[in-house]
C-alpha cells in the first residue's frame, strides 16, 4: 500500500503582527499561535471559528500572501517557508483564494471572459486564443451559460459572481483552493447551489480545499475534517463526524449550541 503524503502540511506556524500605533501599549498579539495541520489530496479541511480567531491569517500564510513569523509550510512537497520571494512567484499559482466579496477584486468594465482569463494572460504561457478557449471552458465548468462570457459584472447576481471567482481561481489549475467565507453572504438557496458546485468540482478534478467558515452546518456539509480555531490556536480537530457529534472542547460545544437550527425550541413563550 502506498502511503499518501499530505498536500498541505503546516508545522508550528506563528504569525505575529506588530502592534498598531493606536494600540501601542498592548503586547504583540499572535494572530496564528503555533498551528500544525495537514490536508490530504482531494480532501476538504473545514476551518471553523469566530471573527478574529485567526482563520484568514492562517489562509494568507498558506497562500504565501503573508510571511509567517516562524514555523514551516509545505505545499505539494515543496517547503514555502524556505523560499525566496522570487521563488514564491513560481509556487503561488498552486494555491488560489476565493473571498466573500469577489466583486471587490474584479474589474467592472471587463467581460466575464476577460476576468476569468486574467491569470492566464498574466502567466502568458499559452497562446491568446488558447487562453480565451480555456476561459470559456472554465465558465461552463462552474455552471455559467455559454453567453455569460460577454457579460459584465453588474449583470451577474451574487451567486454568479462567486462562480466567476471560482472559475478564475481554477484557471491556473491550482492544487489547493482556499474559500474564505466565500458562501457566507449568499442566500440560503444559492448557498446550496454553491455547495453542490464545489462537491462536483472536487469529485471531477480531485482538487484539495481549505474551506473557511463560521457556520458549522457548512463545515459539516463540505469538510472531511473540521478544525475549530480560537485565538490563533486549533482547539479541536478531527473527522467531521466526530467533531460535530462528539465535541470534546467547550468552544466547539458553544459553537454548536449557537448554530442556527430549524428544529430548535423557540425563544418565545408559546402562550401569546
Amino acid at each position, binding site marked *: 500500500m502506498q502511503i499518501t503524503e499530505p498536500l498541505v502540511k503546516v508545522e508550528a506556524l506563528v504569525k505575529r503582527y506588530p502592534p498598531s500605533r493606536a494600540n501601542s501599549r498592548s503586547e504583540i498579539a499572535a494572530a496564528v499561535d503555533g498551528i500544525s495541520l495537514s490536508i490530504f489530496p482531494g480532501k476538504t479541511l473545514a476551518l471553523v471559528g469566530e471573527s478574529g480567531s485567526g482563520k484568514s491569517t492562517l489562509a494568507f500564510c498558506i497562500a504565501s500572501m503573508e510571511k509567517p513569523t516562524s514555523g514551516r509550510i509545505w505545499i505539494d512537497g515543496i517547503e514555502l517557508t524556505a523560499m525566496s520571494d522570487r521563488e514564491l512567484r513560481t509556487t503561488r499559482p498552486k494555491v488560489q483564494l476565493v473571498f466573500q466579496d469577489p466583486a471587490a477584486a474584479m474589474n467592472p468594465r471587463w467581460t466575464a471572459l476577460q476576468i476569468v482569463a486574467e491569470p492566464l494572460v498574466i502567466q502568458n504561457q499559452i497562446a491568446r486564443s488558447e487562453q480565451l478557449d480555456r476561459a470559456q471552458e472554465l465558465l461552463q465548468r462552474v455552471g455559467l451559460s455559454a453567453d455569460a462570457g460577454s457579460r459584465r459584472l453588474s449583470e451577474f447576481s451574487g451567486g454568479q459572481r462567486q462562480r466567476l471567482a471560482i472559475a478564475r481561481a481554477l484557471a491556473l489549475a491550482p492544487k489547493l483552493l482556499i474559500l474564505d467565507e466565500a458562501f457566507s453572504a449568499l442566500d440560503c*438557496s444559492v448557498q446550496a447551489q454553491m455547495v453542490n458546485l464545489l462537491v462536483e468540482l472536487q469529485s471531477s478534478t480531485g482538487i484539495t480545499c481549505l474551506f473557511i467558515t463560521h457556520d458549522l*452546518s457548512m463545515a459539516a456539509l463540505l469538510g472531511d475534517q473540521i478544525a475549530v480555531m480560537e485565538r490563533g490556536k486549533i482547539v479541536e480537530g478531527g473527522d467531521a463526524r466526530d467533531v460535530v457529534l462528539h465535541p470534546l472542547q467547550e468552544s466547539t460545544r*458553544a*459553537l454548536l449550541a449557537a*448554530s*442556527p437550527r*430549524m428544529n*430548535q425550541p423557540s425563544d418565545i413563550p408559546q402562550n401569546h
Partner: protein
Amino acid sequence: MPTVLEVRDLHVDYRDARAKIKPALEGVSFTLRAGEILGVLGESGSGKSTLSSTVLRLLAPGGKIRSGSVRYDGHEILSQSERELEKIRGARIAIVFQEASLALHPTLRVGEQVARVIGAHRSLDRRARLNKAREVLAEVFRDDVGRIFSSYPHQLSGGQRQRVLIAQAIACNPAILIADEPTASLDTTTQSEILSLFAELQRRHGMALMLITHNPAILARLADRILVLYAGRVVEEGPAEVLLRSPQHPYLRDLLRSMTDSPEAALLHHKINLPTITGVALDLSVNSPGCVFAPRCEDRMDECAQREPITVAVEENHAVACFKYGG
C-alpha cells in the same frame, strides 16, 4: 391582538439611470399586530428591504410608491407630511439596519449618539438625555456600560455596534421595531446573542417586531408568523410553526428542502447533492403574465404561465398564492 400596522396593496417601483422602470413590490398586503414577531422571509431581489424602507418612507433615490396604503395608529404614512412623519420615525416606528458601522457616526461617542435620538423626540436637557441614554444602553449591554457609553464606534466589535443601534431604536419605546437582516454580517455566537436580545426586548417592551431575513432558521427561533416574499409578491403567509413544518407554496417548500436543519443533519448530506431551486429569480422589469415562480417551479401547470394566482386561505390564518390550492 389589536393591529398596529396595516399595509394594503402596496406597489413600489425603482427607476434606474436609464429611466427603465423595475417593479419591486406588487400588491403586498399584511397586518402587524401589537406585540407579535412577524418574520419577513425573502432572498435578494424579493423586495424585503424595499418593504422595510417603504413603511417609514425611506426609499432610496429612484424608488417610487405607485399605490397602496400603510396605516399606523390612524395615520396614513404614505400621505403624511415630512414633518408629521418625523414624529413617527424613530419614536413610534424604529428600524435597525444590517450594517451597524454605516449607521453610526464615526467621531461621536456612543452615549452622545443615543442621546441625540432621544433629544430628537423628547424635550429633555442635556444631562437628562445622557442619563436616559445610559439607561437605554444598560438594557442592551449587561456589563461594561460605562466604557461603551464613552467609546467611539471603531472601538467596538461588530456585535457591540449592532447593540448600540438596537439601543437607539428602542430609546423612545417604539410600538414597532423593524429589523432588516440585523445579524447577517455577524458570526454564529454573536448572531445567537443578538437574536436572544431581540426576543428579550420585544417581550419587555411589548413591541411588535418585524424581522426581515433570508434565513428561515432565524425565524424558526423567533417568529410568531411568517410572510414569504418572492419577486415582490407575498406567496405564503401563516403561523411560523405551520409554515416551516408544512410549507405549501412550491418556492417555500423547495427553499426549506435546500437547507440543512442543523450541523448534525448536515453530516447526512456530506458531499451529497443537495436539492436546490434551479435557475434564478425572474427579471421583474420584463413583463410576463404568469406566476413569478413558474419558470423555476417543479409543479408548474398550464395556467401558471397565463395569469398570476390570487391568494387563497388553505386553513385559518394561512394563505398561499398558488394554483395548486385554487389560486
